[in-house]
């Protein structure tokens, strides 16, 4: 079975992608397509988080702030200045990138828990600054009336394909970018710094520069995704900075498997589906009474703890482990006669 | 036999630092361990007091098998290990450090008289009883370290490198105090680089090399000083 999986990994992945791409062509249910779009956006944010959390080994709490900054930048520029969303979204990526540099400069000087605290404080500061300017940002209610995406007279929200393929393309670009990055010399240097910091520094790897770049590279696609998110939902809300979304996205990285990129991508989409369906299913409301929204976050929390406890390498890690084992088995059977 | 180590192996991770080591100590005996640095003496002590897991072999104390026991239970039985590098609770006073030395309930009844004993042995600690441990001098810290050990009413007292890094005068003062403890009937294992210090206290010596006992002698005069020097500094050619 595992031999089979191993040999056909690439074709299988291709088939999976094709099936996924066919979803809007086959599925009529609008909710499912909506969830797929949301799931892909979250998958972008989660897989980019994996770059700092998994590969660089730095706990960047401000990661969701990059997403939020992207959303608010594009939202504010389009609502208050009336510029086109197609210009607003890249601007969101630029401000997210700037923010990542600002956060990383003090963060690279610190270690362990202090990095977590500093980045946490930074993301709170961004939220507080947004809340302190209700005239521009809409305060607690969020920025409403964000224009939807359109090309000429074609409105994205009226088509069930447009957002899906736009976000799909973005996810594809992000994943290719990340995979190339982590298998490059730069990616290897990050792993070296994570696992043998002193040795890596002694061999001439510039710690500060590599960490700063890791922050920067991890911020661009979440910035873009944030902009698309705001125009897709036509609102930029301070909920982006809340504990609940942070927990959900963190669980995507962890359950998917840290330092794998693919894990968070796949599990990001799957978890969005599962958790949103949980929130809207009749079964949940029968079992847990009226308030079923909170119950899914309780499930997510339990899932995180169980993953950390029993599968610290996540789903993707387990798959890799199995295929590595089957590879080993194959090799030994080949070598045995010799 | 009070204390016995049989074929003990232990270390960090999968690498054994102590390799199949055996030794024993009788009631009232004072035994010295010496040998080059990094050959497993401290690892041995950390293993017998329960800080490091045993990979194989057996440790017995007062007729009980204490292999792999929790450090707390080993202390409760009366095996007290005074670690090297004058480890203390730095932000606590001398008095508090000594109080913690008598943490196990076995010592509750004679706490006051134990305080007296420690203060007569080390009058300097009495003067500094309300001073924080981190403000003491190196010699005083070592005295306090031993004092904390004595507060635990040892059946077997293990001192790891008591003289390391001390000025000669203070070293002498400390050696006198350790001899005094020894002559008061406390069974001891002393580990030190300074063989002369050991010769002044112990009746029997073990030489520890590459994680195991390479020489045991009951007649301390037989220890060939030249041989030891050779071991520490390599062959002089």
């Amino acid at each position, binding site marked *: 079975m595992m031999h089979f999986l191993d040999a056909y990994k690439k074709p299988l992945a291709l088939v999976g992608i094709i099936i996924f791409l066919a979803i809007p062509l086959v599925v009529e249910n609008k909710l499912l397509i909506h969830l797929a779009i949301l799931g892909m956006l979250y998958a972008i944010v989660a897989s980019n988080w994996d770059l700092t959390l998994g590969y660089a080994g730095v706990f960047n709490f401000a990661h969701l702030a990059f997403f939020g900054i992207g959303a608010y930048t594009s939202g504010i520029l389009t609502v208050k200045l009336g510029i086109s969303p197609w210009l607003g979204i890249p601007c969101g990526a630029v401000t997210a990138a700037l923010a990542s540099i600002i956060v990383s400069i*003090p963060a690279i000087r610190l270690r362990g*828990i202090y990095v*977590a*605290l500093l980045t946490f404080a930074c993301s709170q500061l961004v939220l507080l600054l947004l809340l302190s300017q209700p005239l521009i940002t809409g305060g607690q209610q969020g920025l409403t009336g964000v224009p939807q995406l359109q090309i000429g007279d074609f409105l994205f929200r009226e088509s069930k394909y447009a957002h899906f393929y736009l976000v799909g393309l973005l996810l594809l670009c992000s994943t290719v970018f990340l995979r190339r990055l982590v298998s490059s010399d730069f990616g290897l240097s990050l792993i070296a710094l994570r696992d043998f910091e002193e040795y890596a520094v002694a061999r001439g790897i510039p710690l500060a520069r590599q960490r700063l770049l890791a922050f920067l590279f991890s911020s661009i696609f979440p910035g873009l995704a944030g902009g698309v998110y705001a125009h897709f939902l036509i609102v930029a809300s301070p909920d982006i900075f809340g504990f609940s979304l942070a927990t959900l996205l963190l669980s995507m990285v962890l359950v998917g498997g840290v330092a794998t990129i693919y894990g968070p991508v796949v599990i990001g989409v799957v978890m969005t589906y599962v958790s949103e369906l949980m929130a809207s299913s009749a079964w949940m409301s029968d079992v847990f009474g009226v308030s079923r929204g*909170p119950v899914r*976050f309780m499930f997510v929390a339990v899932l995180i703890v169980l993953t950390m406890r029993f599968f610290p390498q996540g789903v993707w890690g387990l798959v890799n482990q199995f295929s590595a084992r089957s590879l080993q088995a194959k090799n030994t059977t080949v070598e045995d006669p010799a | 036999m009070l204390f016995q180590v049989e074929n003990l192996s232990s270390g960090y991770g999968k690498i054994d630092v102590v390799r199949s080591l055996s030794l024993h100590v009788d009631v009232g005996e004072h035994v010295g361990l010496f040998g080059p640095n990094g050959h497993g003496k401290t690892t041995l002590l950390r293993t017998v007091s329960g800080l490091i897991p045993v990979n194989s072999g057996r440790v017995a104390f007062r007729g009980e098998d204490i292999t792999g026991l929790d450090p707390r239970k080993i202390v409760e039985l009366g095996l007290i290990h005074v670690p090297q590098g004058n480890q203390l*609770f*730095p932000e606590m006073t001398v008095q508090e450090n000594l109080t*913690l030395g008598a943490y196990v309930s076995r010592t509750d009844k004679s706490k006051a008289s134990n305080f007296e004993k420690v203060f007569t042995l080390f009058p300097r600690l009495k003067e500094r009883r309300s001073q924080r441990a981190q403000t003491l001098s190196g010699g005083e810290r070592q005295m306090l370290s031993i004092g904390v050990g004595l507060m635990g009413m040892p059946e077997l007292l293990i001192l790891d490198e008591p003289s390391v890094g001390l000025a000669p005068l203070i070293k002498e003062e400390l050696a006198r105090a350790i001899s005094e403890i020894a002559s008061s009937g406390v069974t001891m294992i002393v580990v030190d680089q300074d063989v002369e210090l050991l010769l002044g206290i112990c009746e029997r010596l073990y030489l520890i090399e590459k994680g195991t006992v390479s020489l045991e002698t009951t007649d301390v005069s037989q220890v060939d000083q030249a041989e030891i020097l050779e071991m520490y500094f390599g062959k002089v050619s």
Partner: protein
Amino acid sequence: MTPEAIVAIIASGLVSGSLYALMASGLSLVWGTVRMFNFAHGALVMIGAYSGWYISNRGGLAKVLQPIGRNIANNSEDWGLIGDILHPLGEWILSIKAGFGLLLGVPLAIIFCGIAGYVIYIFLVKPFVGKPGADLVVIITTIAGASFMQNGVQVIFGPRYKQLDRILKGPPVEILDTAIGLQEVLIIVLTPVTLLLLNLFLKRSKLGLAIRAVAQNDDFARLVGINVNQIYPLTFVVSSMLAGLAGLMLGGLFFILPTMGSEPLLRAFVVVVFGGLGSLPGTIIGAYVIGLIEQSSAYVFSLYWAPVVLFATLILVLIFRPRGLMGGENS
């Protein structure tokens, strides 16, 4: 600034400072001993408030027990000897329709928080102690724990706000023509007393001494016979009880809702970093300083800008003095 304004700022600064001190000293204690940051500490504040409300209020436990009490009181005559014994119990339950009151509610809620802290330690912390990267893993698991508790409380109690009764009822105290509520006065007075008791516990009791010993040198603590596996959960219990007390105080001032612990937790982080991780005196001084800074900047700038000032201060402290303004070298 008028003298009235100054009195008002000082009073509200002391109230905030007290709450932060109770929360931050627990965080600091856990950090100093276990080397972990408990991100579920804010949820424990919330648990303290909710459990206090549940025990003390007429809409809580008392309401649930009424049918049981009525059943016992009405039917116990048919139960023979057991009924004679149970009858007064039923009567008693019926007589406490208005809730068990704060006299029972406060201590029971604090004990309940202690138990919750123990459960958090067992499930979210203990499995990871001593493993590489444990401090970061525990951040993740305790965030998950906080999310679990917040959402769980919402499932149990619903989204409607609750409010605790005030412990002291009566007209406010007047200082220099400024009215200060009795609840506020109680908080200002009770917090230093609690912290003094905490200090006595840490300095005089055997277990308190053991907590400090483990914090300062856990290897040596093992060698004097301290059971470190018992001290870790103990610090979680003590710290959670302090959080619970903070929640009970907060619940008497504002509405109780599932997310009520998040904001104070953020402040408590600022305080702990500001005062130096693991330094208890630094933490307590830091708490009052932060409380006063916050309230005066709220007066000088605006309510919106006060937290901005606070977090900007925190980031500056982290950049220039990561060990805190009063932190020692062993952090």
